[in-house]
């Protein structure tokens, strides 16, 4: 039974990684840019959720839409002010730009809010429940469910709406998309907005039970990078399943062996994938 518990815990953690990874994969797919500041967008969303709770008493679950919208707008602003100017530039320029943004946002948050850990300590969602021999933390289950719903929404938007299809078209072939009358500049802005919005939903879901501080992004985004690499850069579905796989491998790895080695398993898996299928399990050549 304990193995079932481990599996479920892995899926719960994996769903969060999946949501974070999907946003990351979208940017790469559409613009061929790796956004190193992705974790910092999540951190900002967590801080926003926290401050809305702190000043207005609104639980992060209820302010989630507002936070996602705010970070969507922020993502668009970042595109217009920064990444628009590095599209098509050298890889080094792109890396430095988003890496620099990461350092800047983290340092700025550290400066404004100090490294104090903030927590939402009376969320409407708290406690745990038991099903037979299985134990679940309610906030984590709700977060995972929220992440699953958000992921489904993401898929629906990308595959069932005209804008979503236009976005995919831009990802596939920018020139052809332009020729078909798709405004690629708007698609890029949309991609950044959606990516930031998605990771903001993850952040808002976490804010109800996870500590909020300027360096929190790295804890969630590094495994997401592995998820994207495993699933295939640019493949949203791949990123989703990659996230689930990373979650399960991490929790199982930590349970079956020395937990200090638990990070080895996702990265070892990534190395295997990189060796045998460098474009990812679901990526294409």
């Amino acid at each position: 039974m304990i193995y079932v518990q481990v599996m479920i815990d892995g899926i719960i953690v994996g769903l969060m990684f999946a949501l974070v990874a999907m946003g990351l994969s979208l940017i790469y797919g559409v613009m061929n840019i790796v956004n190193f500041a992705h974790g910092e967008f999540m951190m900002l969303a967590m801080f926003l959720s926290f401050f809305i709770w702190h000043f207005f008493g609104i639980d992060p679950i209820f302010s989630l839409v507002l936070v996602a919208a705010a970070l969507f707008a922020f993502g668009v602003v970042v595109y217009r002010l920064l990444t628009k100017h590095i599209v098509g530039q050298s890889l080094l320029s792109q890396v430095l730009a988003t890496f620099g943004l990461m350092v800047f946002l983290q340092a700025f948050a550290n400066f404004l809010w100090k490294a104090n850990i903030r927590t939402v300590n009376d969320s409407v969602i708290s406690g745990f429940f038991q099903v037979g021999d299985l134990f679940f933390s309610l906030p984590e289950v709700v977060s995972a469910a929220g992440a699953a719903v958000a992921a489904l929404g993401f898929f629906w938007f990308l595959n069932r709406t005209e804008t979503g299809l236009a976005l995919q078209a831009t990802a596939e072939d920018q020139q052809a998309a332009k020729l078909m009358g798709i405004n690629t500049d708007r698609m890029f802005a949309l991609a950044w907005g959606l990516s930031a919005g998605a990771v903001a939903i993850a952040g808002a879901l976490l804010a109800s039970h996870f500590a909020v501080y300027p360096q929190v992004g790295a804890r969630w985004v590094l495994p997401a990078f592995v998820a994207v690499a495993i699933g295939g850069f640019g493949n949203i579905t791949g990123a989703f399943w990659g996230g689930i796989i990373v979650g399960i491998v991490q929790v199982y790895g930590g349970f079956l062996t020395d937990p200090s080695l638990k990070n080895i398993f996702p990265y070892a898996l990534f190395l295997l994938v990189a060796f045998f299928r460098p474009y990812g399990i679901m990526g294409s050549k």
Partner: protein
Amino acid sequence: MKMKQLFAVSALALTVSLGGAVAQAPQEIRLGVLLPTSGAAAKSGQETVEAVQFAIDLINKKYDIDFPFAKTEGLPGKGGAKIKLIIEDHGGLPERGASIAERMIVEEKVHILQGCFQSSVCATATQAAEKAGVPFVTGTSESPALTERGFKTLFSVTPTADDIARDFFTFLKEQGAKHNIKLNSLAVMHVNDNWGSSLAKAATASYKDYGYSSIKTVSYPTNVSDLKGEVLQLKRDNPDVILQASFDTDAIIAVKAYQALQLQPKAILAMGASFSTPEFINALGKLANFAFSHTKFHAVLLDKRRGAAQINEEYKKRTGRPLWDAPARAFTATMVIADALNRAKSLSREDIIAALKETNIPGADTIVPYQGVKFDERGRNVLANGLITQIQDGKHVAVWPADIAERQAVFPIPGWDAR
């Protein structure tokens, strides 16, 4: 020609005598401090920096506090020389610790170094200091491995993990006897760095002496987002007692996981600051209750140590928070440095090291619960000890040792549901 020669000689004599006069004025003493103001321990690091800055002000300026160096300006034994503080953030990264220490030694020409909070950073920074022969005093890095290397330049003021494990086991033995409970199995849950591993090592070395039949150590990497796998491992063994070494966010994640998975030991005893912070209590509410912490500072000392109450007030004015474990220890390390610099025959590295070796500060002249500060040949403070606190009703109360305990310990601790 003769006039020219006379003029040249006079000018030379004047320069030499003026140069000599300048040399008589108090020298500036440079203290290099390495602490984390970013990274996993940023919060604790920032508050520790404030304590060191305050200690330097206490030494350099005049304060009406009954405490060594408070009422004078600068170091009396060095003609009133002031200490110049050079602080740098190492972010918890060992490689940064080494390069910062090197830069401070070579470029800033520091006379002495202090640091580092994280033992893993201290490990590399002290190596750089040892290579250069520059004295290094640590008040906050607890890993015994640091002094086991037998460095000539390193002096550790704080109790180490060995002392902490000894205090824990002694306390548990007393509680077991008092409540007639036999404690058989032990687990150590710790972050997988130098500091965390030192608790596991210390506990593994001595658990049998205290009557335990089994020990399970579970270590996790830094910067985890989740500890379910680890806690499930512990749950398989269901230990009587958990000893823990975690940083701030990990501590919160761990306790939440204990509750979610219903792991219920008879006691959880934590080394270090993370189970002592207001953030921990704030984040966990009732779940924080009954956790034990080994600490080297507690409000109860404000009555027992002269000057401590005023120092606490002054620190509160600067930071908005009262003194606690890490800042108090860093403050103490800075005062140990001042004491040695004051006594040293000169500001050469060898003389400062010789003065540190002779250190013999009584506990009453510190703000910490140590018996005193006196170093053995490995640079360890043989008079270091701590106290054990428990969170009761959201407040830390001292429960051990008996002579300073404010309240009785609640043992065994109630279940997660019964709070």
